[in-house]
């Protein structure tokens, strides 16, 4: 045991399943030598946190051969191939979003078809086109036909253009979602930068938009406002690039006074409901992890 560390009661460490609805993996074409270690670290931390499934995408070459948020068709395919390989290697822990760039409609629709056959259970849209652009309509339509939720990268309250992306906010995504009421949209990383207090009312009246709680932001008040504004049936738990903030939010949710059912909804049941049936057999069978994540006692 180490000195200078707190001894807290970790009420979030639940035997309930846990689905990370927003994860990413890397690959040899991503331009970083440590890609294997980063992927392994996600699984390592996931085991400790009790993550049952990582629903993940690979964002092209992550800027190595084409921009992360504007991936070329070749990089889209390269990244999806890498994610399909991870899916094959980790069938018990990984699930896949197929990444598409809506500027090439034919390629995007073909990738959805190809990757769904390979096991993808959702569509990932970056920031290659604003969320309310008509070019997203055929993708949203196709996703709805397959019953695939669309995870859309979002900036919480876009007040100006930001470099390297054509960024959307909650109001933009709400317009797309209203045009496609049969399709579920996951609004990415409520804690991922920008003004989350703007996003929540922007999507409150659009019932097919589901914010995920991921992102490095851990502002006090964010979870309270999300629960008050949307309710637990509209929220998905996730990590994105920072898993410690995901764990902190889990622990914060555990002390907010939610019922066990509401907590389970955010942890995994909402995801089971949104994704195609059979996507999460270890959850759907009522599976419980063999070992709850150990409270470290520090």
């Amino acid at each position, binding site marked *: *045991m*180490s*000195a*200078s*560390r*707190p*001894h*807290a*009661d970790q009420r979030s460490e639940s035997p309930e399943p846990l689905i990370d609805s927003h994860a990413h993996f890397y690959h040899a074409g991503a331009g970083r030598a440590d890609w294997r270690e*980063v*992927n392994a*670290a*996600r699984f*390592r*931390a996931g085991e*400790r*946190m009790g993550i049952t499934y990582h629903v993940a995408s690979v964002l092209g070459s992550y800027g190595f051969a084409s921009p992360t948020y504007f991936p070329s068709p070749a990089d889209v395919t390269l990244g999806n191939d890498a994610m399909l390989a991870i899916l094959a290697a980790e069938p018990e822990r990984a699930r896949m979003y197929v990444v598409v760039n809506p500027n090439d409609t034919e390629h995007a629709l073909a990738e959805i078809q190809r990757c769904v056959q390979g096991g993808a259970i959702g569509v990932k849209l970056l920031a290659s086109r604003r969320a309310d652009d008509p070019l997203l309509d055929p993708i949203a339509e196709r996703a709805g036909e397959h019953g695939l939720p669309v995870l859309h990268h979002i*900036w*919480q*309250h876009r*007040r100006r253009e930001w470099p390297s992306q054509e960024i959307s906010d909650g109001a933009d995504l709400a317009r797309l979602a209203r045009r496609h009421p049969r399709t579920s949209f996951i609004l990415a990383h409520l804690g991922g*930068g*920008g*003004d*989350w*207090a703007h996003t929540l009312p922007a999507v409150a009246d659009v019932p097919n938009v589901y914010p995920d709680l991921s992102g*490095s*932001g*851990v*502002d*006090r*008040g964010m979870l*309270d406002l999300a629960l008050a504004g949307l309710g637990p049936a509209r929220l998905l738990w996730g990590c994105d*690039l*920072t*898993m*410690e*903030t995901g*764990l*902190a*939010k889990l*622990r*914060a949710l555990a*002390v907010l006074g939610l019922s066990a059912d509401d907590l389970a909804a955010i942890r995994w049941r909402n995801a089971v409901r949104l994704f195609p049936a059979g996507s999460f057999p270890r959850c759907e069978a009522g599976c419980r992890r063999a070992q709850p994540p150990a409270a*470290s006692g*520090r």
Partner: protein
Amino acid sequence: MTIDVAAYIGPYPFRHVPHPEPEALRRVLAREGLEGAWVGHLPSAFHRDPGPGNAELIAALAPHAPALRPVPVIRPDWPQWTRALRAARDAGAPAIRAYPTHWGMGPHDRAMQELVLAAGELGMAVVLTVRFEDLRQRHSLDVAGDLSAAAVRALARAGTRVRLVVTGAGREMIEEVHWGLTDDERARVYWDFAWVWGPPEDHLAKLFRSIGAQRFVYGTHWPLRLTQNPRANLDLLPDDVRDARLASASDICEAAR
């Protein structure tokens, strides 16, 4: 014994924060297994004259001594600041806070150097804040900008008795400062890791391996941020650094004497 060296009371000017009162802080600290906190007065960071806010802070924390210790703001370009510094020491402050970017002071501002030297002579650390909020969500009036690595390096070099606690820095800034200082100068700087990323990038683990956990202290940034975050970061460390020992608030105080 773990002390949160980066807590505040009081409202934040750019968004609502729930219940920023000392009573709520005490409850949160107990829940999180923390024995106490060094507490700043959040609105004073944005006041021209920090004096009234310091008085309010000390009065508000008095019923909560010794668990909550005041960390007043001392502004070194304000008349009578040396008197205010001694008053802070006499009020039991283990450290003081300074916000040079909010006061329009550059990285090599002479007044800031005088402040850290004077605080060091009195055995007090100086708490510096890199940021309160993510750059991407700041109010259009919140234009002070982040504290720079150059400013921290300049203050760390100011004198042998200087002790700095830098809160809210990320990995890049910490590395830039640390490797830009001599061994003696590095020993004058402590960091909290509230804004340092954990897995899968494992920035905190990399920092523990490279510069050592002994340069880090526990800070939550309550009431702005979830108190659970630093502990979650520690709980997700890889096995090789999982038992690394952090510095403590008392280590800082010892070093400052």
